[in-house]
């Protein structure tokens, strides 16, 4: 068994990691850290884990050595602390944005100046569909952002097949759930304000745009809306390209994902769910991708659960690869219908 510790275990993605770790056949839960919840039971914050663990939160200063370290902390923490954290574990999977960008200048532009820029080269971007071989040898994995995961996986086959390139105009529309905003409350997340909104969020400068452009090589025009969902991301990408045939798209998406365990092509002429739909993948590690085409436009869709394929689930998938376990270990849930 591999011991897995979670830094920042009181947040939503931290809680999702705990759910996956306690159900994982090869992982056992080590410490769970939280400054604000120190000494409280984990189940006082994550009630879904009642009966599954009697762990209590510990202060991050009391971190002990472990085998596998997941960091589910707000942006800025691990870019400072990573040198110390890596001394505690052979494998670190960081769920924040602190090690996703290759170029330190990207942090100046999209985040803050990076205090450990030399470590960026050591981090592998944690999308197995793009970097499976690199993850296999990685000791530092930067799990991708939720909006970025959905967007990259929707666009990746179009780029790989040459249907879309950096000369094409790509408009990216992302619809995000409330849990994607994290567990900290603010006025905008107050129920009376958040409920039923269709709220433009970072209309032209969402941070995840940086990693989407890095990984696709495209110049994307991205807008995110906060909508009425607790879990889920729906991404719709419009590429203004002419003369693409439906069969080309089938070939591109099958070529990219035909052997992938957690990406499914959802495009059907029949049934209620003809394209990717977030609620179909709720609680699962799947990313459903789909497409449609007209004379002068290709539309690519994707849907993920932001807590799963968009963060904790893909972090565990990457850890499974890095540790040599079955890639799908602990991630077998197929979702529910109806939900």
């Amino acid at each position: 068994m591999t011991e897995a510790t979670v830094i920042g275990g009181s947040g939503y993605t931290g809680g999702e990691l705990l759910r996956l770790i306690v159900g994982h056949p090869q992982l056992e839960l080590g410490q769970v850290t939280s400054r604000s919840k120190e000494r409280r039971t984990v189940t006082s914050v994550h009630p879904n884990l009642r009966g599954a663990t009697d762990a209590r939160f510990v202060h991050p200063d009391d971190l002990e050595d472990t085998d596998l370290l997941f960091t589910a902390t707000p942006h800025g923490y691990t870019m400072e602390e990573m040198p110390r954290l890596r001394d505690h574990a052979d494998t670190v999977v960081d769920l924040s944005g602190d090690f996703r960008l290759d170029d330190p200048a990207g942090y100046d532009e999209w985040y803050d100046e990076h205090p450990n820029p030399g470590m960026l080269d050591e981090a592998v971007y944690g999308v197995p569909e793009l970097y499976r071989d690199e993850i296999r040898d990685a000791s530092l994995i930067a799990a991708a952002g939720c909006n970025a995961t959905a967007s990259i996986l929707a666009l990746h086959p179009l780029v790989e097949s040459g249907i879309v390139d950096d000369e094409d105009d790509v408009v990216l529309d992302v619809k995000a759930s409330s849990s994607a905003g994290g567990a900290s409350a603010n006025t905008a997340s107050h129920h009376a304000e958040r409920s039923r909104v269709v709220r433009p969020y970072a209309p032209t400068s969402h941070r995840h745009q940086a990693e989407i452009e890095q990984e696709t090589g495209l110049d994307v025009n991205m807008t995110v809306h906060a909508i009425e969902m607790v879990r889920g991301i729906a991404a719709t990408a419009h590429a203004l390209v002419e003369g693409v045939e439906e069969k080309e798209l089938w070939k591109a998406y099958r070529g990219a994902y035909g052997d992938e365990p957690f990406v499914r092509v959802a495009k059907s002429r029949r049934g209620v769910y003809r394209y990717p739909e977030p609620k179909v993948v709720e609680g699962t590690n799947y990313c459903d991708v789909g497409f449609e085409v007209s004379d002068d436009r290709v539309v690519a869709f994707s849907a993920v659960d932001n807590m799963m394929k968009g963060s904790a689930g893909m972090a565990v998938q990457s850890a499974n690869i890095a540790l040599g376990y079955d890639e799908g270990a602990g991630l077998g849930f197929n979702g529910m219908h109806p939900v």
Partner: protein
Amino acid sequence: MTSAECPVCEAEVEPEWEVERGEIIDCGDCGAELEVADTEPLEYIEAPELEEDWGE
């Protein structure tokens, strides 16, 4: 049993039973309804959409 290509998405569609000409089978990948156009060799065409009968 042999298989044949879906004319819509090019998936290999392999019926698990002995199909007859004119039989309808749906593609497991794209959901298109396919009509068995021939059996030797097996060949599909996209089945025509049913049109609304307004009773007139």
